[in-house]
């Protein structure tokens, strides 16, 4: 059974729907990448999964349970986590406090998880007492991912993790994402650097005007001449 399955999801912010029937399915071992032109509903899909906008039709099934329109404070304990594209750290709080906030819904001891995150992003251990607002863009992205991992999610949603980073850091972040996935967390991410991201994606989705246009593994999509021509810039 798939970890999460979106069936014909339609939804928006109250006006005309932005999602016009999105279908997706992710397994526990997958890295899913959503690509597509601006306004295709990529980020909106993630927000729909995370209950941040209204789903009017269709269903989102996570671990066998329908979760459409459930709010984040219910979804986080179920094993979903979301890293927004912008403003994704608490700038006035220390790195460690940021991580603690990620564990807000947990009632058990989360010290081991903090250590696990520090092992994954060693630079954060050095900066644990520093306010997150003082870190560099790449380090902030690690804090944001670390915060999201603190709830021990089975699915991590990432909204353009490489946005605004210099090319060197883009690769580094992608490496970190693969590392997180190897640790047993399924990933579903939206990415502008489509070619680079699809290269390591086990599931790729090309969205346009709020609908699936192409679906396949990452390499399959890169190899598809039509996808390459229309969505990957030739």
């Amino acid at each position, binding site marked *: 059974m798939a970890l999460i399955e979106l069936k014909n999801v339609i939804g928006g912010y109250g006006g005309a729907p932005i999602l016009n029937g999105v279908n997706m399915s992710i397994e526990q071992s997958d890295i899913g990448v959503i690509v597509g032109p601006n306004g295709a509903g990529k980020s909106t899909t993630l927000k729909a999964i*995370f209950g*941040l906008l209204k789903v009017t039709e269709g269903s989102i099934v996570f671990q066998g349970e329908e979760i459409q329109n459930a*709010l*984040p*404070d219910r*979804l*986080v*304990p179920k094993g979903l986590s*979301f890293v*927004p594209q912008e*403003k*994704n*750290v*608490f*700038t*006035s*709080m220390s790195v460690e*406090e940021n991580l*603690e*906030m*990620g564990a*807000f*819904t947990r009632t058990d001891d989360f010290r081991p998880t903090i250590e696990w995150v520090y092992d994954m992003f060693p630079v954060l251990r050095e900066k644990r007492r520093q*306010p997150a*607002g003082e870190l560099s863009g790449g380090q902030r992205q690690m804090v944001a991912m670390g*915060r999201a991992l603190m*709830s021990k999610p089975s699915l991590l949603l990432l909204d353009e993790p490489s946005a605004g980073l210099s090319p060197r850091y883009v690769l580094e972040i992608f490496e970190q994402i693969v590392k997180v996935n190897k640790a047993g967390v399924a990933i579903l991410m939206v990415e502008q650097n489509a070619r680079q991201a699809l290269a390591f994606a086990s599931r790729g989705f090309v969205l346009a005007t709020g609908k699936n246009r192409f679906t396949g593994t990452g390499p399959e999509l890169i190899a598809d001449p039509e996808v390459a021509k229309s969505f990957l810039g030739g």
Partner: protein
Amino acid sequence: MNELIFFFNNVIVGGVALGSIYAVGAIGVTLIFGILRFAHFAHGDMMTMGAFIAFLLMLACQALGISVPFLPTGFLVLPVAMVLTTIIALGLDKGFYAPLRKRGAKPVTMLIASIGVTLIIQGLIRLFFGSGTWSFFESETKQLIRIPVPLEGVTRTINFTQPQVLMVVCTAVAVLALHFFLTRSRLGKAMRAMADNPDLAQVSGINTKVVVRVTWIIAGSLAAMAGTMLALDVQLKPDLAFNIVLPIFAAAIVGGLGQSYGAIAGGFLIGFAETAAIFNWSVLLRPIAGALPFEVPATLAIVPTEYKLTVAFVILVVVLLWRPTGIFKGASS
């Protein structure tokens, strides 16, 4: 030396007392602004309401003959008054602010709603208590503490009242408790997180409704404390609120809205500024009058006493124009 003690009694003691009241009130205003993102104008009335609740409880205690030696009954009943005010504050939120929040109302609408709440509380207080003045020390005496200074030629004593000592103690306890709450507890950190970035707080799974409730609990209990302290220091009257809410906003803005430590500093700054502005500085100049190139006038205050409250407004306006984010921005974050 006598002149210095006079200065100490008037400016320092008065400033500390007033500053404590402003600081405790301003923390509430600043927390509500940080979490709920609007200027809560009804805070002064919440303080007055808390003071009147404490007053009623005191009357009840006296009627029942409950008293503790060396402690004014006003302080004895303070914890109960804080709890009751908190319950009312939560009710006000549920009745007036929560429905607007749910609709996604703008901060301005919330501000206007808080004016409505001001009017309602104000009207109810006046309905029940009239517009007269009440005192916590009708049947008890306000103890004056005099400390003689062991120096030759010094005749004045350092004077302050017992409520003033207790006020400072209460303020210190409240501030310390708040500090540990905000830096050590899970909910306190969640409050800071929500003030910092509400969307991310929601995404992290922080239950924003609980945080809002905690905010009202802290703000409501501190309002009751500040109001009762003010009533114990001066007197209790229904229009206490309006004279106090603006200096408190001044304190919160001077400290940077949303920043608790800034609010405390701002409160003391405004308190000292008010007492220093109306102090007759010629008292301090008189002993050295011979050395001065000009004649010392009989009264030399920065502003006449009638303008005491105006000092806070002037500071407020100057800070708003010069540094609207507060003068401690950068130091405290």
